């Protein structure tokens, strides 16, 4: 079998990773058939603005789309939208789709993404309770987002806090309910949690930590209250749920493809079936700069794995793997994150959080493994280079703002 001789490629999932694979296949000279199966009624679009500028109404819908419809026609990409892929028959090399149709493949890219975790409480099905994942979700939420209305956000992760910032700027009364003892507990350090709590509180958001949702109450099918385990009752016109996502791996697992909280892939995005690749949120991949495997929920990962899959299928050299990176916009704060901080043994803060311009560096055995940079692009960009190089960086230089990040990077890289 020579995968580079593929005549027909099927992609399941019209998110950023699936779209990138297609763009890179065509850019790389692949001329065979491409069929893209997507559940949503629209062509691939970028999701980050959904909880930011788009939600606020400052970003027109057509700007969300990576390519105009004409691109798919001109590039002979067959979009099968509003359609769910049902099953993969590996022996027949065929994906069955809802309503009885099917798509045959020589190579298959699974880019099924992830889905929001649902609230396991009574009242979760009331009207006015929303997830935030798709354009359709935002279209449902937006009409109710007017001044003075009460929004309760369950979960103080990035989605929850970004939505809180937008809602607050639109004049809503916002309460964030977080089960853990601090915001962003799953993804960052206490330093950053404290900073974002202070910021949101100053903006008028109420943040409740160590707070467990008991259930939601409603009238005539519409949510009206969120009840917490400690008997607190929060009036609510809108409840937004941002408690994490789950990989859509079932279609792969059901076909006997190895999964473990994510479809297991190698550096080239191969699954354990040589004709099947998995990319994006749904994939559990090697994290080459960290010597372990993991699932990344990010734009960087979607783009990188889309490119890796295309290169693997076309028989081209593997593109260099970047260190993971992320960003989050809240109010006028741009947070840029490089690397993964899990397992750090030292934090160095550069600058003063009170200036709303600072960075927290995470080191392990003296090596920089991650940075959270708030309105501090040089700290972010220099750290990316240092993390990939895997070099030791002197903590006393990192927190000395009289030395530029450029100088710190050059010294460490040449040291």
């Amino acid at each position, binding site marked *: 079998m020579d995968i580079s001789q593929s005549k027909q490629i099927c992609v399941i999932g019209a998110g950023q990773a699936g779209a990138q694979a297609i763009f890179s296949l065509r850019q790389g000279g692949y001329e065979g058939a491409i069929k893209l199966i997507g559940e949503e009624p629209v062509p691939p679009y970028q999701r980050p603005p959904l909880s930011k500028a788009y939600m606020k109404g400052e970003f*027109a819908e057509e700007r969300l789309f990576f390519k*105009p419809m004409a691109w798919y026609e001109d590039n002979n990409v067959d979009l099968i939208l509003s359609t769910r892929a049902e099953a993969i028959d590996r022996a027949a090399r065929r994906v069955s789709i809802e309503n009885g149709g099917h798509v045959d493949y020589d190579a298959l890219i699974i880019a099924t993404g992830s889905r929001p975790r649902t609230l396991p409480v009574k009242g979760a099905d009331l009207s006015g309770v929303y997830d935030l994942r798709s354009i359709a979700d935002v279209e449902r939420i937006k009409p109710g987002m007017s001044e003075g209305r009460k929004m309760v956000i369950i979960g103080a992760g990035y989605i929850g806090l970004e939505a809180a910032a937008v809602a607050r700027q639109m004049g809503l009364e916002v309460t964030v309910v977080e089960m853990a003892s601090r915001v962003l507990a799953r993804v960052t350090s206490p330093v950053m949690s404290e900073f974002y709590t202070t910021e949101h509180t100053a903006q008028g958001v109420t943040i409740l930590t160590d707070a467990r949702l008991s259930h939601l109450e409603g009238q005539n099918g519409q949510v009206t209250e969120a009840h917490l385990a400690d008997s607190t009752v929060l009036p609510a016109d809108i409840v937004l749920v941002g408690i994490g996502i789950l990989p859509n791996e079932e279609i792969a697992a059901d076909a006997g493809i190895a999964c473990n909280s994510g479809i297991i892939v190698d550096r080239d995005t191969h699954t354990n079936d040589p004709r099947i690749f998995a990319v994006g949120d749904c994939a559990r991949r090697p994290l080459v700069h960290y010597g372990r495997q993991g699932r990344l929920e990010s734009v960087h990962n979607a*783009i990188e794995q889309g490119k890796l899959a295309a290169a693997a299928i076309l028989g081209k050299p593997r593109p260099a793997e970047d260190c993971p*990176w992320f960003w989050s916009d809240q109010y006028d704060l*741009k947070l840029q994150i490089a690397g993964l901080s899990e397992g750090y043994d030292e934090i160095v803060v550069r600058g003063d959080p009170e200036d709303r311009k600072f960075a927290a560096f995470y080191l392990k055995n003296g090596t920089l493994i991650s940075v959270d940079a708030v309105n501090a692009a*040089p700290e972010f*960009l220099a750290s990316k280079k240092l993390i990939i190089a895997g070099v030791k960086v002197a903590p006393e230089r990192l927190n000395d703002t009289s030395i530029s990040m450029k100088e710190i990077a050059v010294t460490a890289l040449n040291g």
Partner: protein
Amino acid sequence: MAKIIYVDHEGTERTVEATNGETVMEAAIKNSIPGIDADCGGACACATCHVYVDDAFMEKVGGQEEMEQSMLDFAENVKPNSRLCCQISVSDDLDGLKVTTPESQH
């Protein structure tokens, strides 16, 4: 509307009709202009839409904000006419704008 001319590092020119209000980056991505990655989709978070602006248009494209400046500070092969094209909005004034892409965005 404005005609934007993208020149790749080998000198090949590609002309695109861009709509007012979209960015020079978005017009490039929609028209599959090679040499512009724009990984973050225009959030000024990644510095992969670096271009060199034709000198005649340097004033018309406006100034850089602080975030863009510091992002560019770490890009490769930066010149005085370097910009991140996600931060340049298309308007009638930019008709005929010529931008050149660097050999690599990484």
